[in-house]
């Protein structure tokens, strides 16, 4: 395990921000820490890194106790904070170089690494610009460049895609995958379940400072017995067709609405081909099909009764 946390507690007076949290992260994985705003994700990260004083618990990173080996451990961690954490009066190059120096890089190695970080984040041709001249997406990428200049073994990304356009978001998500392929373990903190689902191999869901679910995507989805929902857009809808579909094994409901037909079946019914046959037999043409499967959002909803972005 690259990170092991045991019974971590962080209080702010009477408010418990992190409540007896324990988790393990394997080397080489992209670990997702998911939860709504205020769930305690950032506090957990800050406490792990020693940025906030913990009240109790043990944090072990790279097999070493964080309390006793803080400086050594930090040398191999890169942090991408939730907010853009760069100096506005230094150019992109100078920003990355400044943080590179703090991580012990010097001379030609520093120059090489800064250029690499700029290239990786697609900012090489704008390296002499000040962050104020960058778009939101470019600032986010600079935020990442400053974190990876020293090639850390562990990268912690706290909501790295907040408030950016889809193109920059895709760039960042691809960067995360590439960093992981290059050997870095990534802790990806977000309240965007789509990103977590796309990137992470293991996921921990937090709420009110506690872990409410943990495991692989499949593990989490199997925790909840959700129905499968199929929405069909047809050339025409008739009641004979609806009656026939309702008779198919596993179908719980079939609801017509204009040219749309919503079919709800029990999980694992595997009845899609029979539903399609029924429609074809009714002289109707299928224009579109949308199959909605169990999602992490659904898992969170089932476990907490709230949506992730509530």
């Amino acid at each position, binding site marked *: 395990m690259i990170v092991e946390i045991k019974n971590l507690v962080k209080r702010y007076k009477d408010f418990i921000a992190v409540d007896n949290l324990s988790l393990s992260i394997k080397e080489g994985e992209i670990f997702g820490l998911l939860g709504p705003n205020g769930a305690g994700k950032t506090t957990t990260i800050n406490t792990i890194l020693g940025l906030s004083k913990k009240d109790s618990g043990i944090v072990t990173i790279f097999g070493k106790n964080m309390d006793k080996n803080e400086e050594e451990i930090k*040398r191999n*961690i890169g*942090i991408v904070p939730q907010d853009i*954490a760069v100096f506005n009066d230094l150019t992109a190059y100078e920003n990355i170089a400044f*943080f590179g120096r703090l991580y012990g890089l010097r001379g030609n190695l520093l120059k090489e690494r800064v250029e690499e970080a700029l290239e990786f984040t697609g900012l090489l041709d704008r390296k002499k610009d000040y962050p104020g001249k960058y778009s939101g997406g470019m600032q986010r990428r600079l935020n990442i460049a400053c974190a990876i200049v020293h090639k850390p073994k562990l990268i912690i990304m706290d909501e790295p895609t907040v408030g950016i356009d889809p193109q920059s978001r895709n760039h960042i998500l691809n960067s995360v995958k590439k960093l992981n392929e290059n050997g870095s373990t990534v802790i990806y903190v977000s309240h965007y379940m789509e990103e977590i689902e796309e990137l992470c191999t293991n996921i921990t869901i937090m709420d009110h400072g506690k872990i409410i679910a943990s495991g692989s995507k499949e593990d989490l989805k199997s925790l909840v017995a959700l129905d499968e929902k199929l929405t069909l857009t047809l050339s025409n809808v008739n009641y004979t067709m609806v009656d026939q579909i309702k008779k198919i094994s596993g179908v719980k409901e079939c609801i017509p609405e204009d040219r749309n037909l919503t079919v709800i079946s029990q999980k694992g019914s595997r009845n899609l081909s029979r539903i399609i046959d029924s429609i074809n037999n009714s002289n109707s043409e299928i224009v579109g099909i949308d199959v909605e499967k169990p999602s992490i959002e659904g898992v969170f909803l089932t476990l907490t009764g709230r949506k992730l972005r509530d």
Partner: protein
Amino acid sequence: MNILYIALSTVKRNFRDKKSLFSSLFMPILMIIVLGTALNSAFQGQKIDKINVCYLNQDSGSQGSNFNKFLENDEIKDILNVKKVASIEEGEKLINDNKAISLLLVPEDYSEKLKSGENAVIQIYNTKYTDYKNEIIENIVDAYNSGGNTMLTDAKLNAKDLSYTRYNSVNESIISTIGKVPGAIDYYGISMLVLALMSSSIFAADAVSEDYFKKVGIRIKAAPVKKYERLIGKILGCVIDIFIKGIIIIVFSKLVYHVNWGGSFGMIALIMLSSAVYSTIFGMFVTMAVGSGNRASGIITILNNVFTFLAGGYALIVTQDVTESALMHLSPNFYPMTAFLNVIYSNNYKVNVQFFNTFGYISMLWVFSALLFLGFMVLEGRRIK
């Protein structure tokens, strides 16, 4: 090495900040010429008010009455208001009540001693705070005493009766300070340099708030840099920045405005360094106390203007009143200003009551810096949760 990188980066960033350059470099340079020209009259041909002294003559001999005549001389009357008192206690009371600067005492055996060839002097009881008025009185009495000794020599050689003769040299020795006092441009050169040094605490406030209250602080604290390295680096960077800007102001004002900065550059540098350290730590303390760099900057700007005014930085304050002078001592800007004036004008320019000497004022800056740093550390401990 981290300390050096943080320090150099702080200097570089401060020098790139146009707002900071304007407030700490261009503005003081501009203010020197504006105030130095506009308020020049306040520094030209200052007329010294008559000095109040009290006088007790215990000598009934001829030399005692000679001193009476001496004090009634028109030239002395132009300078001194002499009030006769009946006892030393009465004189002391007048001095303590600030109604007189000195008590001149002609001792009982003054004539006797002169006649017998012994050393005889007229004694002076001064206020405990020395200033130029005491020096004037000492000059007058010294002149008379040396005259007395001349008479003594005459007495031994000629064995004739002695009598008082006027000493024109008295006036000359009093006004010999001409050329040793600052003109308006010199004075405002110093006061604006002090203003620039002290207002640089705003950069320290900003530099420190980055680590504790701004977003970039998370990244800095997550880096493998020890807290003391971060702090020393920032302090060093701010001090170097302030010091360099101070040197630029001095060189520019000397070459362009011909401001007199004296010849004791080592001492000037020491005062600048002490002020820069104080200013930096003051900025850090205010930031930690209010929990925001922006709020700290606002407070520092207001305080610095109040301190500059109190120290006589905008308008020269001439006072020998102890209470008023004590009030001036409440302003930390008063310490470097007084130290600069003392060093450049060789302690000849003292328009206020000074509680310390030059090194005392420099030490005060370091004492305050130490206390503010302690306060900063205590507040920092409370802020990090």
